[in-house]
């Protein structure tokens, strides 16, 4: 007889998206209506995990994916606070060297 272990029971909405979770002790994985006690594979992760009735799948739509990737691209072009601080320090250093006549 398998020993019961603690597992996460995911509560899904009518569209298969996770809305809450709690811990259950069970020897096996199971599905009971909108309660899914099935752990997703560890080698893959989802932006918007969804239960398709048999397994966990990516629930992000193509439109949402395009929007997310565009936002990521835009954000990757913005300098970080550290980069801005470094740039400001560099400008101050160059200004100081210029005033001292070290550089022109």
């Amino acid at each position: 007889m398998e020993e019961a272990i603690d597992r996460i029971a995911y509560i899904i909405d009518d569209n298969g998206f996770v809305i809450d979770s709690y811990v259950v002790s069970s020897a096996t994985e199971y599905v009971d209506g909108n309660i899914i006690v099935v752990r997703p594979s560890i080698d893959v992760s989802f932006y918007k995990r969804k239960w398709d009735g048999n397994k966990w799948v990516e629930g992000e739509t193509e439109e949402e994916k395009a929007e997310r990737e565009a936002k990521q691209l835009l954000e990757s072009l913005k300098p970080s606070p550290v980069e801005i601080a470094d740039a400001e320090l560099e400008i101050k250093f160059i200004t100081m060297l210029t005033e001292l006549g070290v550089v022109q």
Partner: protein
Amino acid sequence: MAYKGNQTTWDNFAPSLQQKLDEESKDINQKVDGLKTEVNEHLAKSVASEDGAHDLRYLDDKLEINDGTNWTKIKTGGDLFGIAESTDGVTYSVVLDGVSEYVVGMSISIKPNKISTVRQVKIQVNNLAPVPITHANSDFPIEGLIRANSIYTLRFSGDRFIIQGDGFGLLDSVNSATTLYAATANAVKQVNDKVSATPIILTPNAPFVVESSGELAVGKAGNVAVLAFKVKTTQQLATTSQYQMCEILPVGYRNLRATVVGHGFCWVSSVARLIPVTIASGTVIMQAPPIAIPANTYIEGNITFYVG
């Protein structure tokens, strides 16, 4: 002469008055005779075949009717009680005197002979069609709620019987989706047992993955929880975005009162970097990193917090 009074008085009446009195007395006597006949016919009928009652009495706290021979207690709604028989715990049959139809608002009481085995139980009164038994909000009672040899009072709503009074049951196991039942001592013990529990393995959200099971987990000792993680990025993390590391923590593992802050640690271009990680009401967020974190970077750390 239809006049029934004193003869001398009658003789003193004028002939025209005598004639008039004779005619009116005749009409009155005919009406009286008709009423006598009607009363006799009424008395000759059975109470069972006639509207209205012959004789009623209230004796020894009982309202009774006489059918000409015997006094019989009048049945009222409050006495609609019977043994509800079932062979499978699904449909119960009960025999109740005088019920020939379901009437909105009618109240019946039943004593089931068997525990219910499904949620969608039904009750059949006499030979009427079986109708569902539900809670007031139309939810079906969980299987096992209808107990053998207990007594339930039901009222007809028009299409179903609604459990009155003690309709909500106890459960040995409750969760956040349980809204209609109360926890038993057994259920409370299970919760207490959970206070110190083995770590619960969590699933990372994109853009994070784990390489081995258990590298993202939360455990508890008393009311102190520890979230430990070693995740790998699957894309570059921007300095202006925050990322939800995993699904909301399960019930019992959430910090309910405040946001807690910890950090994740990683190496970027041979420089050690710390990234703030917060947990607010169970939602684990990796805050915007100080510099862009490339894909395939390992970030690890832990956060300790109170759960209650």
